[in-house]
């Protein structure tokens, strides 16, 4: 794949993904119906989009402690990701694929871990220095902000501070509790 098309890929694959799935918030809607007694249920409105996704055969990820499935776009850490998921590209949710460099600066989101119900700060670092991975595109935008709120925008190539800005993939690091 041509490295110059990283952004096209973000748009293209994201568009296909959007067409099939709905937002993380919709996912939480469905999840909320599963977590009997969860305090968040009253806060989560039912959505037509969610119903449509369910009709299309949407598969709930297996939630078991922190594990979940890091190769699934609905993995809890990915609530504000916009890029190719590193585990599909030879890395993990917290490490970059071989031969790439983790971006030093990045955008920060807040995601809820369904295993314990706590909110965590997530750092979405891009993996830099190679052509786009092209595997497992994931575009969730929970609390994504426009580019002028720089540190909370996922519409930026965060390899921008590196000597080479080629975008390859993205990790989601848990930095700590959002409320602590």
């Amino acid at each position, binding site marked *: 794949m041509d490295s*110059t098309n990283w952004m096209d890929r973000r748009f293209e694959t994201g568009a296909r993904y959007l067409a099939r799935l709905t937002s993380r*918030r919709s996912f939480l809607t469905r999840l909320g119906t599963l977590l009997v007694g969860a305090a968040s249920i009253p806060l989560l409105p039912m*959505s037509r*989009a969610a119903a449509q996704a369910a009709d299309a055969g949407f598969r709930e990820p297996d939630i078991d402690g922190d594990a979940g499935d890091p190769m699934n776009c609905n993995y809890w850490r990915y609530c504000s990701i916009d890029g190719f998921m590193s585990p599909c590209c030879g890395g993990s949710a917290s490490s970059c694929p071989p031969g790439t460099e983790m971006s030093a600066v990045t955008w920060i989101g807040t995601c809820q871990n369904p295993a314990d119900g706590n909110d965590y700060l997530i750092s979405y670092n891009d993996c830099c220095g190679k052509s786009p991975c092209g595997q497992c595109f994931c575009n969730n935008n929970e609390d*994504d902000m426009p*580019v*002028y709120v720089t*540190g909370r925008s996922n519409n930026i190539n965060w390899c921008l501070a590196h000597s080479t800005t*080629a975008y390859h993939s993205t990790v989601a690091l848990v930095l700590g509790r959002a409320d602590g």
Partner: protein
Amino acid sequence: MISRTWLAGLAIGITATPGFAQEFDAFGRSEVLPEPERDWMFVDYSLVDVTDDRYLGLIGVAETFSPAAIEFSPDGSSLFALETFYTRGNRGDRTDTVTIFDTVTLGVAGEVVIPAKRALALIVKGALALTDNGRFLGVFNLTPATSISVVDIEAGTFVGEISTPGCSLVFSGGDLRYLMICANGDLLTVTVDEVGREVSKERTESFFDPEIDPLREAGVRFGDEWLFVSFDGTMHSVDVAGEIPRIGESWSLLSEADREENWRITGRQPLAVHEQSGRLYVLARQSEEPLDDPADWDGTEIWAFDLATRERVQRLEARPELEEGGGPGGAIGSTSGDGTSNIQVTQGDEPLLVAVSDTGISVRHALNGDYLHERLENAPASGWLSLRIR
């Protein structure tokens, strides 16, 4: 045995027009464009005649690390684009340029090397801005420190860099001024002198509150005003005519009834203005939930507002009911793939409304909504729509 060649020659002899003599082509000829017309529109870097459904040519921008952000000289003779190069393809030393294209030959007319800092982000509006006097091109830098690089178009030189901490994107704010949007919702005014050097920077506080209702980046120009729409459908304006940019009264595109029906303003290129009639066209769709990023969701309707009265005067289906859609993912600008992502309107007496949809690019008469082309056959499937002539 009679050879096939002989038979073929006989056949040609029978069918050829008496006296016909094939002329030979001259080698090496390239087209140049005639006088530009108002219905010429760039779809990303491709120039298309949207009336005749004709592909006119391509601006040869080498690298597309960000969407097709372009600016035109006031007389329309030059087009400015941003390019990024590495000495080894996707690695090595980085060079950023402002590249100047001739809009008649569509060839490169010049380039100015700028600091290798330009923002590599999914933005079109705000990536670069030409001052209203047509002389100084500002380029938004993000390293992630924010600044603008100023290029003197007349002299063909890089003038300098202006630090703009906390403020991003760049819009023209008059003859010698830029506007930028700050992370806390302030508006930054950057003034330059007659040679493009920084004179002053001033913040206008509380233009909006990004924590409550952020502005979309994709602003549009209407005369001396910049118009921006918020995530929640509120229009904000900045008038740059006076000595100090003046923030206008904000107003909502959504009535109470619209809100009850969960209408929201969406699309990657959600706004377009027809100057002469003062009509603002916007993309809208229904969603019960607020959308985390409205740019990712196509509009299902196009609404037109009279900017003088702020009344909605027109309501159109966003795209034709074509059975065979192109589907999402054609190129830049594709989004949820179930409606229209980008709109633009040509200027003049008979404006055309051009829309990028999952079914391709449609063209209709803006004032009555009648289709001229339900789908352009000789145009890219999608892309950012830029006017060749305002």
